[in-house]
């Protein structure tokens, strides 16, 4: 997730509950993997937030003002790390089907072929 060298993920909010059982994985993640994740990504602003009575989730805020929410209830810390890494690796673009696999502004270098062309 880096458009021309600029990281696109601005902020990652780790929401958890200290009582609920569905937050057990994310609490373990916060102790084991989160410090390493923070050090590996110094450009990223990582916040932890406690929300009681709700399932845990990861909120990602991107530079194009998009946000993505991933619910991590009942997940292992390794899975949560995978989801966090995926959020960091992605651009903030909308998840829709790709139109083309090749995006270019200059489709032709030697001139577009026409039937009237003579070599």
């Amino acid at each position, binding site marked *: 997730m880096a458009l021309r060298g600029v990281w696109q993920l601005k902020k990652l909010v780790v929401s958890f509950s200290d009582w609920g059982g569905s937050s057990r994985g994310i609490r373990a993640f916060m102790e084991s993997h989160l410090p390493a994740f923070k050090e590996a990504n110094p450009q990223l602003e990582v916040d932890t937030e406690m929300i009681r009575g709700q399932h845990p989730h990861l909120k990602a805020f991107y530079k194009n003002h998009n946000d993505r929410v991933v619910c991590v209830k009942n997940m292992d810390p390794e899975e949560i790390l995978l989801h966090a890494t*995926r959020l960091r690796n992605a651009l903030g673009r909308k998840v829709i089907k790709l139109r083309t696999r090749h995006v270019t502004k200059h489709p032709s*270098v030697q001139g577009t072929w026409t039937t009237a062309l003579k070599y």
Partner: protein
Amino acid sequence: MIFRLFGLFTMHTPIRRCLQALTRQSQPTLSLFKDPLSLRLLSSAALLNHNISSPLLPIFTNSKPTSAFGQWHHGRYFSSSKQDDHIKEGGTHEIGDEDDDSDGDDDDDDDDYDEEEGDYEDEDDDTVAVSSRKKVYTEEEKEAEAEAIGYKVVGPLQKNDNVFKPYEPAFAVVQIGSHQFKVSNGDSIFTERLKFCEVNDKLILNKVLLLGSPSQTIVGRPIVPDGAVHAVVEEHALDAKVIIFKKKRRKNYRRTKGHRQELTKLRITNIEGVEKPLNELVEKPSKSAKKEREKVAVSA
């Protein structure tokens, strides 16, 4: 004693196979078993030499205890729980002792077939992790080989160098995996997920099939050896979900499966190996640029 030897002589193929296994592994000196008669003679001699403890299985007792049972124990085939696979290494000897009471012929057949499979299963069981990607590429050489198959070389990470140049009128046909793209400077490409590179990594795509510019075209046979295309990994993301729906009408068969393909977005930064025109072109191709495109000179 004589009765049991007589029984051995009457049972042909399983005994011959297991005797071959015995001679192959534990007794390298007894390698001449072309004739069944000679084989039986050798086996009988071998059996007589080894003091046979259990009457039903003369082969499995003292000669090769660990190797036979190490190959035999496949927890998956007998239990549905994956915990037994982890117990495998610690519990080989315990379960091996239990196998003494079972039929020897079945063990013989499975041993010959499963010698190679056992090693692969060990590797798979040791690396059971949360995610589906279990293989750990410990050596960097392996990564280099895999990259060569995928026609990309990872360079160092991005530093403070200006890699993103303005548009240059040059293109290249580059192959990544099994897909080919006609790329130019500043394009972005979605490929299948490239394993050994992170975001903001520099790549060099070295399988270049065609290079072109307004003044020159180079056709590779099949690759241009000096051609290189530099790219930067922009993102690793999942595609939108595709629902795979299968139905057979009037047969009560309906399946729904979701699939998200893992993609990598690359931004092409530089194309090397072609001579590019010196004068900087404006955004819109002018008439002078079209006149420069003469008959292409093909050089291999």
